[in-house]
């Protein structure tokens, strides 16, 4: 039987680092990130676009990486959960305010859905007018598209408020907007 796959070479800027990969055209972006690029922080919960665990940012917009083919992001910039934290001057890392808030508010239990929430909420908070206090409607909007089976969502909502508050107090600093790559995210 002849191979049913044809392959393509793609170049994607992942978490600020240009990465190349040769992938079958049918490879999902979620699988390419996890298995071709070794970025296993992006999780796959349903493979039909409902749970949101696999959410990544493509050119800054949250997308379900299980509903996108890897070849579709050729030339694009992808941000995964591994790219949310920034490197600090001392070689350590500074967590994104949303990551800090999730720790502070016990907004995760098993942690499997967490990367999708973090990426979605980080992008959403950075896109809003940071000087205003976040409304409950905004909170509901930010958490409303992802499934979590452990937390009952109460502490996730709390974390969104906490992060929004931190970002409001920190003023203009947009962690993702000017993110420097934390480190070279090579295959593991």
């Amino acid at each position, binding site marked *: *039987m002849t*191979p*049913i*796959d044809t392959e393509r070479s793609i170049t994607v800027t992942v978490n600020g680092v240009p990465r190349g990969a040769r992938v*079958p055209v*049918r*490879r999902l972006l979620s699988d390419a990130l*996890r*298995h071709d690029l*070794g*970025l*296993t*922080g*992006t*999780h*796959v*919960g*349903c*493979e*039909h676009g*409902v*749970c949101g*665990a696999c959410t990544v940012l493509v050119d800054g917009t949250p997308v379900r990486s299980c509903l996108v083919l890897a070849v579709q992001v050729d030339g694009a910039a992808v941000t*995964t*959960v*591994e790219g*949310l*934290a920034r490197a600090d001057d001392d070689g350590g*890392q500074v*967590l994104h305010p949303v*990551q800090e808030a*999730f*720790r502070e508010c*016990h907004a*995760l*239990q*098993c*942690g*499997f*859905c*967490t*990367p999708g929430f*973090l990426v979605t909420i980080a992008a959403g908070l950075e896109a809003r007018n940071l000087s205003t206090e976040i409304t409950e409607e905004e909170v*509901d909007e930010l*958490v*409303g*598209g992802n*499934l*979590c*089976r*452990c*937390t*009952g*969502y*109460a*502490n*996730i*909502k709390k974390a969104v408020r906490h992060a929004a508050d931190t970002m409001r107090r920190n003023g203009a600093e947009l962690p993702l907007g000017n993110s420097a790559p934390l480190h070279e995210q090579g*295959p*593991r």
Partner: protein
Amino acid sequence: MTTKLFGEPVRRREDARLVTGRGRYLDDIGAQALAAAFVRSPYAHARITDVDVEPALDVEGLVAIYTYEDLTGPMAEPLPVLIPHPQLHAPRTGYPLANGEVNHVGEPVVMVVATDRYLAEDAAERIVVTYEELPVVVGVDAARAAEHAVHAEIPDNVAARHHQETGDVEEALAGAARTLSFTQYVERSACMPLEGKGVHARWDPADSSLRVYSSTQASTSVRAAIAAKLELSLERVEVIAPDVGGGFGVKIVHPWPEELLVPMAAIALGHEVKWTEDRREHFIGSAHERQQRQEITVGFDDDGRIAALDVHAWHDNGAYTPYGIIVPIVTATQLVGPYVIPVYRVVVESVYTNTVIVTPYRGAGRPQGCFAMERTMDRIADALGLDRAEVRRRNLIRPDQFPYDHHLTFQDGRPVVYDSGDYPGLLSRLTSLVGWEAMEDRRAEAASRGKLLGAGMAMYVEGTGPGPYEGGHVQVLGSGKVLVSTGLTSQGQGHETVFAQIVASELGVPMEDVEVTTGDTRRFPYAVGTFASRAAVMSGNAIALAARGVREKALRIAAEVLEASPDDLEIADGVVGVRGTPGASIPLRTIAVLSNPLRYAFDEAAKQATQFARPGADDQPPVAVGDAPGLEHRDYFSPIRSTFASGAHAAVVEIDPATWEIDVVTYAVVHDCGNVVNPMIVEGQVHGGVAQGVAGALYERMAYDADGQLQNASFMDFLMPFASEVPDIDIDHQSTPSPLNPLGIKGAGEAGVIPGSAAIASAIEDATGRRISAMPISPTELYDVMRSPSAERTAAAGRRTEVGG
């Protein structure tokens, strides 16, 4: 306890890796592994007449195909019945791969191994299995009617008839002033963790050893199962539960067929093999729970005090009974809740259907038992025109009645004896938390907005922390690091944090120095597993005992060095000091070095220890008889019986009479799990449990059609709640410490889910005045109830003429 960490809302240490994408879940392991995929039965009941693998053979990347014919030795035998019971008279289990017959959609028939998952699925879909369809049994009523049999040799479909009684129920009912009889149903749901199951296996031919990672709740038992089924020596097999993306019960079942087949292939192929369950596989191939039909008769007096309770339930156990009758037993014994039931008889018939197996899902039969008991309380209140809280109050076990013996036998074979609690306390906290007395005002206010408002409540008692045992190991290293291990596994409960809190408190060391490992058979080979709200009770106490052993040894060594009595020593921040004598101190890490007479000066710690070293007596061995080198201790906790946590929930619903949409506007929880190690984590467990309780009441069901096809096997169609469906939760805590364990802990993991359906059904009934006797209930079903002329109206509705629809 010298360091005040026990009881504090300490931030979780797991989270540092989990929020940065550095968790290590099953599918994150084994980048070079071959991938397994399964051909699963598309029929609920059929004979397999042919398996033709020929069309798959030229698929690029195909490595191997396995059918039942390829299984040998113990692998060709049925899977084990894990928990046999004398009343499980007709147990049946499947085979790792179907042997001539399939009994549910999703049963594995063929395993394919290929170089990647895409190719494995390409090959799987080309394999042609020919089936001869057989009649299908779906649902408890069809199983009961027994027009067809799931297993031909069990014509009545009854696997077990579980029966307990505490007196002559017929006589007690005959003598009761009043009786009520009714029938009700609970539908199927499932654990549905965000991460499905998964197995990775690696065989080392050089030393004939096998390492298996599994997304399991019981790694030690998976290890024993693999060794037995693959005929390997136990010490050649190690099983590790990595980060696990939720369990809720489904991952306690073992061995799942895949946990045997993937290692089998890894050994045969001499290459690592991995299988990661996809969501559809999880829906149709992994366990469900909850469906029961309940026929209840209760006798009571004119004050609403129960005289006798007679329950006959039918429990859908699916196609097989690998987990025995744990769920029926739990329903039967936990049904009685916080109440005095003078005479009780329960029969639970566990019946076969052509659906995927039923094994514990968070609550494990308790939600159904609670639904039976609490709806009975509501019926009594309605019949007598009494307040529902008052009827409950009159029947509660009083605080002075502990230990309270129900004269029943629990899932662990031990008597159901409640150790401690304060049930009237729970009820009074609940009524004030939810504003029970002011509900008529809220009802009127809602009515002014055109909404029907109703309130309901439910109470429960939960046997937690069943034995037989868990163990803990604590070791202080020369670096000052404290290594802690226990065999049971974690699926997000924060064990690394709470066990570190316990050790830091018991040993007097900074929490940062404590490292906790769970679910790794290399570190701790004896364990039972994480289920039945038992991790904090069982491993928490075992680890505390192990830490106390380390402390005792550390103080003994320090006493010799410091020339003081052990009684005068204390440990704080990792340093042993003589109370009231500043300067007379020695760090624990130095004691750790001293505890081993062989100390090569590899590092500073060993060099520093030499200043304290005292030459041993010439006539004594360097390691005294009964002593051991190293500052470590292993201990086990084995309680005489389970400890009983308790709680009370109330729900207030608003219903829109135009759409019959049901909105939970208030949800109140009073919770008693004894002493709390970390209140932040306990509250998180309650939140998650309540979300699953609300889900089971209003949204989730497994929609099998008459052919045994699961019609909603995706997150599109199975309505798992998003944030918009989960109400805000008000929580109040009460604490009655358990006298059965050193830390006074009761389990907290499952509690939140138990009373959801009972409390919400009660609230809907209160709002609509129509009897609600089946859960979950959708707006469409409620509409059907409301427009049905035969729907039963509650007596309360008759008394409150303004309510209705």
